[in-house]
């Protein structure tokens, strides 16, 4: 049993003055991540909100090395860095990619797949806030069904389900992949520690609150991301060497509309008599939860 204060940061590895918006997930995400990874870490950043949040030249928000690289190529850049650190005897250093969902689901998916397939010893962290937020809220393939963005405005909302990146990455047979939530810090920190210890390609997918993009109130970031877990819109699970494990079972699953209602990006669904869309999302979420439960059962039975 982990002690109850396991969500406390003992030694801060970030400097003050990060440039995130109020209520942004990145701020909390990197505080916990860096406090566990430590200074002997090379963070590789494709274009993303965090590449701005960490500060302009010559600033660096993190105590650690940061390498900014091309949008499509963070895992490839990390491959070169990892290879040379190993040759220099620094096998114990961590190489971590910090990417958004655009850099992960869309433009970066080829180099992500390449590095995962090669079994590169890299920790990949995706802050999934469901759109290109850094460029001002454009649709990505992680954008949820029903959401409006600047490129899916008004009634032309995003009308396909988000890509199942966890399924795609699990299919690469990597040693460790997990989802995590900033509302469940003990679980998040446990997964960072586990990912840090594991050798090979690891991926953490974090549900990223984004008040300007999700049209939410900054003070509700954590409660909404908790609701995403309670509704199973963003279930907490891990895939440890092909074995699925659900890390949190809601006592009573909350209907998805409770979570969606708090987000302005879905408000049109509640005004425009789009109950069918909400029902479709509920059905899809139920189906996905059921599927994960079956994978969980199957994995724990053998």
């Amino acid at each position, binding site marked *: 049993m982990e002690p109850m204060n396991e969500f406390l940061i003992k030694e801060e590895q970030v400097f003050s003055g990060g440039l995130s918006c109020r209520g942004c997930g990145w701020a909390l995400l990197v505080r916990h991540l860096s406090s566990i990874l430590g200074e002997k870490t090379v963070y590789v950043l494709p274009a993303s909100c965090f590449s701005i949040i*960490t500060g302009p030249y010559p600033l660096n928000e993190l105590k650690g*090395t*940061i390498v900014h690289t091309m949008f499509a*190529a963070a895992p*490839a850049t990390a*491959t070169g860095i990892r290879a040379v650190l190993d*040759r*220099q005897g620094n096998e114990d250093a961590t190489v971590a990619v910090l990417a958004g969902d655009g850099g992960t689901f869309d433009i970066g998916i080829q180099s992500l797949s*390449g590095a995962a397939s090669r079994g590169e010893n890299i920790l990949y962290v995706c802050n999934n806030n469901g759109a290109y937020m850094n460029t001002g809220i454009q649709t990505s393939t992680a954008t949820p069904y029903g959401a409006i963005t600047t490129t899916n405005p008004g009634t032309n909302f995003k009308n396909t389900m988000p890509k199942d990146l966890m399924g795609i990455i699990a299919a690469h047979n990597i040693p460790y992949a997990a989802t995590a939530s900033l509302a469940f810090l003990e679980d998040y920190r446990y997964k960072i520690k586990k990912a840090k210890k594991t050798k090979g390609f690891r991926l953490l997918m974090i549900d990223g609150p984004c008040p300007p993009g999700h049209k939410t109130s900054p003070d509700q970031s954590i409660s909404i991301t908790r609701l995403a877990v309670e509704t199973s819109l963003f279930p907490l699970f891990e895939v440890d060497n092909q074995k699925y494990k659900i890390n949190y079972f809601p006592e009573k699953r909350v209907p998805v509309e409770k979570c969606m209602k708090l987000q302005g990006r879905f408000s049109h669904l509640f005004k425009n008599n789009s109950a069918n869309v909400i029902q479709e999302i509920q059905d899809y979420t139920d189906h996905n939860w059921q599927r994960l439960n079956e994978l969980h059962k199957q994995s724990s039975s053998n």
Partner: protein
Amino acid sequence: MNNDIHTKEILKPVSNSKQIVEKYPRHTLKIIKGNFAAAEAAKLCRVGFVPAYPITPQTSIVERLSSIVAAGELDARYVNMDSEHSVFAAAMGASLAGERVFTATSGQGLFYAHEVLHAIAHFRLPIVICNVGRPSLPWNIWSDQTDSISQRDTGWIQFYGESSQGVLDTIIQGYVISEKLDLPVMVVLDAFYQSHTSENVWVPDSDLVDEFLPPKKRNGNEIDLKNPKDYGGLVPPDHYETFNFQYWRDITKVEELTDEIGQKFGEYFGRKYSAIEAVNIGPKTKMILVALSTITSTARGVINNHPEVGLIKLRLFKPFPVKSILKAFENVPDDTIIINVERNFIGDKEGAIAHEMKHALYGKKNKMYDVYTGLGGKDVPPLTIEKIIEKGFKDPEEIIWIDFE
């Protein structure tokens, strides 16, 4: 088309006769293809990281390097990447971490890596690569310099090799230049005429190369886990220009350094190199051909029969060797005509050599003509060079398409 199984056979020394050994002491004469000469050079330079992706006609360079690494003949990490974009991104990461890096590509691969080429140059990373020139779609895999020429504004130093020997020697010099200025170097081979054609190559002994090219020194800008830094974060306008100024200052040193290192290479290896080579140019020269790569070899032979025709071989193409060109033109009369031989098409009336030569000779009165020839790998035999000379003297047009149907 996989000739690798014959590699060992091919790389056997063809002669050990005293006479030949004395020509270039501490060398072995081998008959190898241009691509194998490039791989051999990378091995001799003791590169530590080779990210790779196949593309014709470059593939046998990285294939050969993979067998060299697998056989334990080179202590390097060889990685099969997922694309050329990733190859160059991995090269960037490895170089940032302080390793000597080599890779090779061609045509579409180079085009695909374009944005990374800019990043590597502006991160000031000393990487050397080989490009085996071929054009873009519609599919064509044959000799053409449009791929590398279209990357000339990425900030990379570009050398064009006339022979396989030149390629091997230029890769070695390339690392010296690259690591001295912290600028990346691209060494370009002609597809098939060079990449897949076997010729005599004097391969230097590795200890001789070690004397000329010592192990890569760290300059303090590399990733240092004990002294963390941030690389490449958003640079505000006030600072951005400072980086460009420093870059500009160093790129202006390339031409002189090329001559200096080429001279020094001659002292170590017995073969001297310079930014350009001026052949048969003087007060009596009536025509000067300007060319890159293997076409220069053909032209060299043809002008033996034309004492009034000279030749400029552009070995360094980017930054363009303006000083060397002006020096070559010191005693050239105003009525000497210049003919640029273009194996590139950049979507303009003139080819790339014409643009550069006009910039170099601004203010000179010499008439300049531009010949398109050999695009997409079409052969440029001696007869074509003869036709160019004849056309140039008798009936020149501003733009000439020779042998064109």
